[in-house]
Structures are given as structure tokens and as C-alpha cells.
């Protein structure tokens, strides 16, 4: 079957160099990929925009890389007002289609300007945002199941065990972020069988592959993306797509230098 492959994710998926997504496109010669990865976005945006993309394209096939739970998205009615209140804010507001818009998701990654900083200090709950990520995973799985859409969920890091704020300090000490009452309502409902939970960064860390840069923090370079994809993504996708380009190492090597040149 000819699929519309929806590639969703945050900045690790949308890096300046070749990432897992680009290697998938190259390996299978995916035509008209649906690019749905944006810098700074959190899991609420990633998943809900993925569902939106699935409804916009025929025969969708989802490959979504989720991100840390402590990056959250706020839906705002008026981005002009949002930017006025949160002066010097650089992240745009995007609608579900991924376009910059007046109303939409204000996703700021691990940067918490103005009102978000206030919220983080006084109201933020780690349990709740872990719960929101589980809720979104469940939602995506159920949506795809009901529509018979193949769905591969990836993690960009051990998102249920490490926070972005720790990863930014190169700290991959595991914690159990979902080991609480809120999350427990979803942990038993989710199909974990195809989700490799250490994620890209956890894989890199376990296999002595580069993933950290002093300037851009946890953003693995191309060779690390390729190694991860070869181990945890291609074996799944090979049963849906025929392999057209086998050796992706030369191209990964070429883009590897971009990481060193930052």
C-alpha cells in the first residue's frame, strides 16, 4: 500500500543535520513525506497535530518521536497578546496544522518565558505532565487502532525516566516519572510493546554514541540517529516498505561534521 508517512517530533527530529526521519526517507525513498516536526514543541502538540495530519492525508502511516514531559504546550487564543505579555519571546504560536497562527499552541521547549516561568514556579506538577504524556500516547494509539493506521512511537530520550532540565546538564540518572497515582490510571492501558523507552538519547548513552553538545545540549548527531534507526526503527519499517538505499553511512558521516562545527 502507498502510505502518506507522517513524521512528527520536536527539535531532535528537526535538526539541521540528517536525523532518523531523513534516514527513513532515504532508506525507503518515501515520496511526499508529511513533515510534522517543529522545534520547541511538546507532546500535546506532537500527538494532536499528528492526529490532525492523519485526517488530512490518505493512507497515513505514523512515525512520531515524543519528547520530555517537562516541555509543555499552552493553547493560547491570541498570540499577539501572548507575545506582548511575554516580551522577547522567540517561539511562535502554531495551530494544529503546524502553521504559525494567531491562536494555537505556544510551545517553548525547555525555555519558560514570563507567564510560563510563573506557572512553572507556582503551579507546575511533574506528575500531571507525565500523566498528560501518557494520556496523549493512549489517545494516539486508540485513534490509530480505530482507523487501522500503522503507528510507530519513538522517544527522543528516556522521556518517562529523565527530565529535559537534567538532560541539558548531561544528567541521565533514571527516575520513575510515571510512578504516581495520576499516571497509574493510564500505564496499564497503553500498549508498551513497541515503545523502546530509553529512546534515542538513552540508546546513545548505552552504546557510547555521541548525544550531547555543550551549546545545543541533548541533540545527537547524524551517526547516532542512524545507529538508533538501524536498531530500533528499520526492523519495524522493513515489513511495510521496501528498502531502496541500504548504506546510509556515507551521508550520515557527511552530516556528522555539522555537529562538530557548531
Amino acid at each position: 500500500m502507498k502510505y502518506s508517512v507522517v513524521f512528527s517530533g520536536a527539535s531532535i527530529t528537526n535538526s539541521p543535520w540528517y536525523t532518523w526521519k531523513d534516514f527513513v526517507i532515504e532508506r525507503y525513498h518515501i515520496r511526499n513525506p508529511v513533515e510534522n516536526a517543529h522545534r520547541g514543541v511538546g507532546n500535546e502538540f506532537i500527538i494532536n497535530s499528528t492526529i490532525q495530519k492523519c485526517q488530512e492525508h490518505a493512507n497515513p502511516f505514523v512515525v512520531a518521536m515524543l519528547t520530555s514531559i517537562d516541555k509543555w504546550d499552552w493553547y493560547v487564543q491570541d498570540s499577539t497578546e501572548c507575545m506582548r505579555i511575554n516580551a522577547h519571546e522567540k517561539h511562535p504560536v502554531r495551530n494544529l496544522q503546524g502553521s504559525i497562527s494567531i491562536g494555537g499552541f505556544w510551545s517553548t521547549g525547555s525555555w519558560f518565558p514570563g507567564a510560563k516561568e510563573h506557572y512553572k514556579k507556582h503551579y507546575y506538577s511533574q506528575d500531571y505532565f507525565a500523566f498528560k504524556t501518557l494520556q496523549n500516547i493512549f489517545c494516539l494509539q486508540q485513534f490509530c487502532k480505530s482507523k487501522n493506521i500503522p503507528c510507530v512511537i519513538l522517544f527522543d530520550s528516556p522521556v518517562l525516566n529523565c527530565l529535559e532540565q537534567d538532560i541539558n546538564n548531561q544528567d541521565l540518572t533514571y527516575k520513575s516519572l510515571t510512578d504516581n497515582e495520576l499516571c497509574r490510571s493510564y500505564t496499564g492501558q497503553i500498549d508498551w510493546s513497541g515503545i523502546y523507552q530509553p529512546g534515542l538519547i538513552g540508546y546513545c548513552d548505552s552504546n557510547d554514541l555521541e548525544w550531547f553538545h555543550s551549546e545545543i545540549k541533548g541533540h545527537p548527531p547524524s551517526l547516532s540517529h542512524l545507529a538508533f534507526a538501524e536498531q530500533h526503527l528499520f526492523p519495524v519499517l522493513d515489513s511495510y516498505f521496501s528498502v531502496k538505499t541500504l548504506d546510509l553511512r556515507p551521508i550520515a558521516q557527511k552530516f556528522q561534521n555539522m555537529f562538530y562545527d557548531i
Partner: protein
Amino acid sequence: MKSLRILIAGDSFAAKVQEYIQTVGWPELLAESFDVVNLAQAGCSEYRIWQQLVTADLSKFDCVLVSHTSPYRVAIRQHPVHKTGFHQNCDAIYEDIKSHRVDTLIDFFENYFDMNYAQDIHRLIGQEIAQHLTSIPSIHMCHVEKNLPCNYEHMLDFSDIWKKYPGPVNHYSADGNQTVLEKVHEKIQQLVG
């Protein structure tokens, strides 16, 4: 096989989960092969693990599994946040206290808590546990680096396994629970099989 009687003491790594998340972890799977009494409780301190062991009648068991916990978990009478459910008997640890904004305990951890004292007490309780278990074969486990309070004759360190197979059941994925089960099973067989 089922006649071997196993006592489990420890923290959430070894606690029964089925009641809370309608699935089973390695402790429940282990109970399919052995007669298991599981006293482990999520979030408990090393002090409480020692209490689990001293209140048990060791003469009723062939082997004891101990899942050791962090030296930085402090025993408290009643947790200010987790009053029911899986963590109802848990003790205080800084990350959890901070995330739930319990100001009095944040103040304690940030301004008064002595990490050296905690490490020494952890080691002393660990030695006391070893002493208490001299009459029975015991296997000492941890899944976070540096959580083993002292050296024991029979140890299982799962910290590398956790990094490979994190997940929602006893902190592990289904494959992780299976791996832990196999290693525990093998160790029990070596020791008392």
C-alpha cells in the same frame, strides 16, 4: 519447585503491582514458581526494609530477596502527600517532596539534611540486615547505582538492565521484568535450588 518459600522485602522495585495497574511485574511472575510472601512497599526507606525483615518469621522461608533503596530516602511517620494507594507507606525523598512542594520538608532537605549521615546510616542498616539474615540464604538487589548499602555474598545489580528496559511495571518494561525474573530465578536456583 513450588515448595521453595521465598520472602521478598524492599521498595517499589519489588512491590506487588497488580492491584494498582492490572498487570504483573517480576515479583508476581516469581510467585508462579515459588511460594512467595512479598512485604516490599513502594517508596519505603532502608529503615523500613529492615523493619519488614525483623518482623518476619524467617524460619518459614528458604530464601530471602532484599531490594535495597536509596540512602537519601528518610523514614517519616506519615507521608504528607501519598496517603493512599501504591505509595501509601512511602517515606520522604527530596525529588518527590520538591515536586509536590512540601515546604517544611523542602526546607529540611535543602538546609539540614546531611548526606554523609544518610550514607553512613544506610550502610549500618545494610550491615544490620546482613547480620539479621545470617541464618538464611539471601539475595541482595538494587536497580539504581549505589543503592546497595554494603557488600553481600549474593548480589544482583540491575542498574544496567534498568537503563536498557525502563518501563511502567516495577520500573521496567515487559522485557525488563522478564530479564529480572530470569536473573532472580537463576540466582535462587544457584543458592537453594
